[in-house]
């Protein structure tokens, strides 16, 4: 077979693991194997699969369109506020804040998007991750490659985490640029009334992106878990979105106040902790702990389901 690596040349990084005595060694493929296969090998292979996964995600038109739509929202909000603000009427609260400072558009955009549109975007990618491959039949070939079940699941989750942060960053960047173009820059007045410098305002946006991205990653864990239960990706995607909406409804029922802190959307909106002075670290910490708990719980469910699942698609 002509595909074998040339084991003779010293510099060749032949990393195949086939033993020298392997029966079908049609050529010299992998003869250098044992010698070169080092500790870094599985790690490098993991990154290679993750890179492949990211390439697939970020080259897929659907996923790019979603990012584009999310980038458009802050622009529309900014232009609308500029128009309303220009008329000098109906200015109140946050609208006045935005009109007063360019950075505030980022926080306003998050408050518009974090409860539905961003979760939808993340659900599409994470819900599709296993179910989509199963439905297309590519899952059986990935596992026969062999991708390894735990390894593939880890790659799929990390890919969804990266997409979660991409979604969050796109919203923040679009809002920031729009804000800087349409509204005055300068010191930022926080919700608590204190004023911080522009630099500190930007820093707080970075903290906010980190927090919201983590929240989206927690949601991605739920979507991934659902994705292991079906071969129809739309089922996992819709299921995750339904969970988000049901959580909102539960939050709106006063009698259920006791469960509110345990619902993800409650924690999503806690990003406004960065607008307190000083930053409400406790709220952010509790939120991150909640996200971590969700990732642990649903990651375990996904793993338990996927590692023993019969792949019949």
């Amino acid at each position, binding site marked *: 077979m002509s595909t074998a690596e040339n084991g003779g040349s010293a510099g060749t990084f032949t990393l*195949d693991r086939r033993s020298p005595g392997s029966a079908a060694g049609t050529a010299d493929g992998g003869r250098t194997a044992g010698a070169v296969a080092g500790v870094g090998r599985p790690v*490098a292979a*993991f990154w290679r699969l993750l890179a492949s996964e990211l390439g697939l995600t970020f080259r897929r038109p659907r996923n790019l369109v979603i990012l584009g739509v999310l980038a458009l929202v802050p622009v529309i909000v900014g232009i609308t506020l500029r128009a309303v603000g220009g008329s000098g009427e109906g200015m109140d609260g946050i609208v006045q804040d935005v009109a007063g400072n360019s950075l505030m558009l980022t926080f306003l955009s998050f408050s518009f998007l974090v409860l539905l549109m961003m979760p939808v975007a993340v659900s599409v990618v994470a819900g599709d991750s296993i179910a989509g491959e199963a439905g297309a039949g590519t899952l059986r*070939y990935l596992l026969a490659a062999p991708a390894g079940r735990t390894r593939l699941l880890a790659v799929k989750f990390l890919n969804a985490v990266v997409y979660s942060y991409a979604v969050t960053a796109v919203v923040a960047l679009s809002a920031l640029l729009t804000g800087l173009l349409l509204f005055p820059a300068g010191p930022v007045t926080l919700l608590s009334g204190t004023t911080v410098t522009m630099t500190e305002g930007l820093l707080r946006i970075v903290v906010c992106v980190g927090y919201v991205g983590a929240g989206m990653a927690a949601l991605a864990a739920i979507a991934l878990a659902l994705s292991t239960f079906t071969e129809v990706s739309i089922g996992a995607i819709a299921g995750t979105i339904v969970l988000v909406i049901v959580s909102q409804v539960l939050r709106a029922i006063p009698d259920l106040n006791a469960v509110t802190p345990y619902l993800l959307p409650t924690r999503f909106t806690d990003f406004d902790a960065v607008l307190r002075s000083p930053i409400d670290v406790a709220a952010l910490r509790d939120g991150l702990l909640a996200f971590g708990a969700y990732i642990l719980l649903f990651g375990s469910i996904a793993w338990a389901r996927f590692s023993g699942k019969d792949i019949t698609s």
Partner: protein
Amino acid sequence: MDTATRADAPDTLVETVGAAIVTRGLTKRFRSGQVAVDALDLTVPRGSVFGFLGPNGSGKTTTIRMLLGLVTPTSGEQSVLGLPPVQALPKVGAVVEGPAFYPYLSGADNLMRFDAADPTASRATARRRIADALDRVGLAAAAGKRYRTYSLGMRQRLAIAAALLRPRELLVLDEPTNGLDPQGTREVRALVKEIAADGTTVFVSSHLLAEVEQMCTHAAIMRAGKLVAQGTIASLSAGLAVRIRVETPDAAAAVRVLERLGMDDVRTGDAHVTAELGGHAPERVNAALVGEGVAVRGLAVVRPSLEDVFVGLTGEGFDVDG
């Protein structure tokens, strides 16, 4: 655990460790209660081209999925290349239940994707191995085209290319000629022969008896989840008689001659007569026929086909539940 030996089993996996595939009592009962594979004892010798035959729904694909670690057996043992299936996978190339690729990627990018999934494949050589594999199945010219635009035959060949990305010790091909035109079928057969000539064991499932007869050195026959027979092609049909077939307009006269020679099971057809050849030399039979003035238009020795084997073993036609 998969290769554990059982004290009570006389031929345990240890004794057959030289084989490419060994299963003992391999059983899969799905949650629906359906027993897809029932106590399968399969031994695939290294270096063989092994035909895995059976009508559709006889458990072939479920067996292959178990051998590839995609489906967990309900009970029984299995070893692939002397290892539990999942550990053997880097040495195994597989086409399972038809091709499945990413429609929006090119053929080459699709292969890159599956190569990236194999933790033992070298990234440095990936491009060259992909080009070689595509070349080998005749897809070099279509390497940059999106999979979406591939014909069924091209898709099937791309799946085989994916199985050939690395030098393999075992190639598992599930119905590799499904959906191919006669030309494509011939190409796949030629490719299988070429791969086998390199020393790779080829395990090929099919519901086409003639295909297995042409390609394989060994075969196993499945029916309703159970193994009916296995062995070399010759040994499978050894139990069935070789027949002689005489084409003649004088059927009645021919029958008399054959019966006088002491041949068994003489049957008359439309302008031909057949009988079990037994120990007779065909040329002497011919001389006897001509000597008696029977007009012999054609004479042939007919070896039993796998279909005859299947019918003989199960008492029913092969395509019953196809």
